[in-house]
């Protein structure tokens, strides 16, 4: 929810951003070097985030008191805090945590004893599935409409589309989700209220050998048409809620960048040679706009995850974001910290991948 608009500012600057990076890369030698350095940059990023999150979370006190404070007497509590090592100097704990994180151990939730890394596999798949659906919606809605808006620039359909885009990200996901549920699940009864599958389907999916956790894949492997339909039905509303949020941003992003490239000399040059307007839009302006679009879309991953937290909560989509709010509610700060750091790693890695894709698309870098 929150990065929304600033990304947009970013998007204004985006067409500049990519070439600037390109320039840097070209100074920096080959693509290989660039990718290596870009990859190494993940480390400080993650390091900074781990550090920030650790100290912020621990500034409130130790997680045991947070989770169990109410139930135990002071002595019992102190005993447990001591056992878990939370009474040692913060720095000692920090370095220990750091060491653990770099060996892939993100800790274990206090409230239910689950290793955080295990959550990546159990809930990560659900989040991945949701994000995947949402991206489909976002791409299907945002990109064509963005192009349309750029094409019909400054006419009324453009204004309508832009207001639509803004409304998409001005509406809090939880509010929008609630309205969707009310209309489509309760009043019309077309779609299920929440969850990833109905009970029967859920049981079948779970008992499937070697289930991936991605229900759609599992359902297809199961080969039961009804289960597939059931899984898809459950995905519709969350995908729309999260997808439209992102679609609004994509729309705006595509519009801005395509208008930007439409004004570039090379489009003008192609126009001067009689290339038709439609083709200018579809090829000459769109392709170059794609590079900054992809770069900024990469930054949207962060936003998408923020949105996913709220969407998953609204629709009981049991993914990482859902789990995060659960742990927040339980004040299980070890788990919160673990998931947050996990998400940070995901974001850092995704951004890296997106940058690589952008670099590969950009011929200035590829050659």
């Amino acid at each position: 929810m929150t990065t929304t608009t600033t990304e947009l500012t970013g998007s204004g600057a985006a067409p500049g951003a990519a070439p600037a990076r390109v320039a840097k890369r070209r100074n920096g030698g080959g693509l290989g070097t660039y990718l290596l350095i870009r990859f190494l940059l993940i480390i400080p990023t993650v390091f900074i985030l781990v550090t920030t999150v650790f100290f912020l979370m621990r500034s409130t006190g130790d997680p045991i008191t947070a989770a169990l404070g109410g139930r135990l007497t002071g002595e019992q509590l102190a005993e447990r805090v001591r056992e878990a090592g939370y009474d040692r100097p913060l720095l000692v704990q920090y370095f220990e945590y750091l060491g653990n994180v770099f060996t892939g151990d993100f800790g274990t939730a206090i409230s239910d004893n689950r290793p955080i890394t295990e959550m990546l596999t159990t809930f990560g798949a659900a989040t991945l599935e949701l994000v995947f659906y949402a991206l489909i919606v976002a791409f299907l809605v945002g990109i064509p409409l963005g192009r349309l808006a750029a094409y019909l620039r400054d006419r009324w359909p453009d204004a309508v589309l832009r207001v639509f885009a803004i409304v998409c990200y001005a509406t809090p996901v939880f509010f929008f989700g609630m309205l969707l549920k009310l209309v489509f699940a309760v009043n019309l009864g077309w779609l299920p209220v929440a969850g990833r599958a109905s009970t029967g389907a859920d049981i079948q999916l779970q008992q499937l050998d070697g289930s991936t956790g991605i229900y759609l894949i599992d359902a297809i492997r199961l080969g039961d048409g009804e289960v597939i339909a059931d899984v898809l039905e459950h995905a519709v509303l969350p995908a729309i809620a999260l997808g439209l949020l992102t679609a609004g941003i994509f729309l705006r992003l595509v519009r801005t960048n395509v208008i930007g490239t439409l004004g570039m000399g090379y489009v003008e040059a192609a126009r001067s040679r009689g290339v038709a307007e439609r083709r200018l839009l579809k090829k000459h302006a769109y392709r170059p706009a794609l590079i900054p679009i992809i770069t900024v879309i990469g930054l949207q991953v962060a936003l998408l995850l923020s949105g996913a937290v709220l969407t998953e909560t609204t629709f009981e989509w049991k993914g990482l974001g859902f789990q995060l709010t659960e742990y927040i509610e339980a004040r299980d700060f070890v788990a919160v910290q673990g998931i947050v750091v996990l998400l940070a790693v995901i974001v850092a890695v995704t951004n890296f991948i997106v940058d690589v894709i952008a670099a590969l698309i950009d011929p200035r870098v590829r050659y």
Partner: protein
Amino acid sequence: ACGGGDDGGGGDSGGGGGTLTIGTTDKVTTLDPAGSYDNGSFAVMNQVFPFLMNTPPGSPDVEPDIAESAEFTAPTQYTVTLKPGLKWANGNDLTSSDVKFTFDRQVAIADENGPSSLLGNLDSVETPDDTTVVFNLKSENDQTFPQILSSPAGPIVDEDVFSATELTPDQEIVDGNAFHGQYVITNYDLNNLVSYEAYPDYQGLLGEPKTAQVNVKYYADASNLKLDIQEGNIDVAWRSLSATDIEDLRGNDEVNVVDGPGGEIRYIVFNFNTQPYGAATPEADPAKALAVRQAVAHLIDREELAEQVYKGTYTPLYSFVPEGLTGATEPLREKYGDGEGGPDAEKAAQVLEAAGVQTPVQLSLQYSNDHYGPSSGDEYALIKDQLESDGLFAVDLQTTEWVQYSEQRTEDVYPAYQLGWFPDYSDADNYLTPFFRAENFLGNHYENPQVDQLIAQQVATPDPAERTALIEQIQDLVADDLSTVPYLQGAQVAVTGADVEGAEDTLDPSFKFRYGALSKG
């Protein structure tokens, strides 16, 4: 498992063939009894693990479950005899060795989320033979011990599946089929979906379950649970529906709302040192301090709190031991307010005036906004409003995150503050010992030697009638002192589809929701 699609699409309302789907907002921490001490986990354990003692439907008191008999064979010796030939669902024998294993490991693991603290009075466990277990206790005649055997510390586990020294992962328990209860778990997806199947060899107190197959769906958001029960997607909705939802569902013909007494209570704690005129304040004066507490008790309108904030999902509480438990009385109803449960501003004013307290009394009142549900804010806004509306109090209402709250409340930071209590087992003692003995968990500097002595006495009184009398006397005494002012008692509410029966049988003061009691017509 491809035979699915029994009643296809999205509306698989429990399915035919004796399947029941229950929705809940509870959360499971872990299946391992040593690692969890919460309602959600305990609810699962109640279906699938055997207990030595258990509460029969409709009563708060305990009886042998998989035991044939259980009794004090000496003041510090509690002997339980198991039924012969018990078997775990995986075929292992269920013997006294499992029982010893269970309690030894509870104590050994002492997990921070676990209930091992309940076993504080347990010294050692002996197994003279395969069916006999002897519990050696530290204090004599502990009348709560049978209750403890039915509490979260009590589920017996299979020593061949569980680890003696650490928590056993849920999946191992499920894979090991280490169950012996009305049900066994056939499919387990933590906090999402759990499927149960009746266990044919269960021979305990509860008998054969009425429904052979039960699925439990876990919800995080009560409104989703509500929508699903309303849409008929599930058969039973259990726990934590919001007050609004329940009220709405009451008006819905397609579902039944079933109420039962709840064990959860809410109360205001006074810190005897820092409350107005408290012992550590400059103008310390025990009489005035008592007058302030009494004025609060006079002014609180429990009816309004229960109705406006909780829409009847909580009920007014006029005692320290909630209604439904053996020995519960309502001393506060007569002693304070209009004598019929309502508030009385007049009396409050008189009390204060008689003690020479200047009004309005400045009272700092603290509550936690994140521990007792989202309605705490409304609850305390209303209490503040009630205390202030006659000009007797000026309340400085503050809220704190639970982490700090739980630290600061025992550090004498809060003169008066909110707390809630959910019992470990359904015995009146669980509402007395933790609160009113000299060294209590409230840490509010309340001390009444007589009360202290009486509490100690009732625990060790084997005769039920005698004990009940003592408990009543304690309540009366505390009602005079007002160490705390209890005001609400949670109700258990289950919502069932119109064709589901049996919910009322299990909504009893044992606070154990047993799926086996439910059936679908």
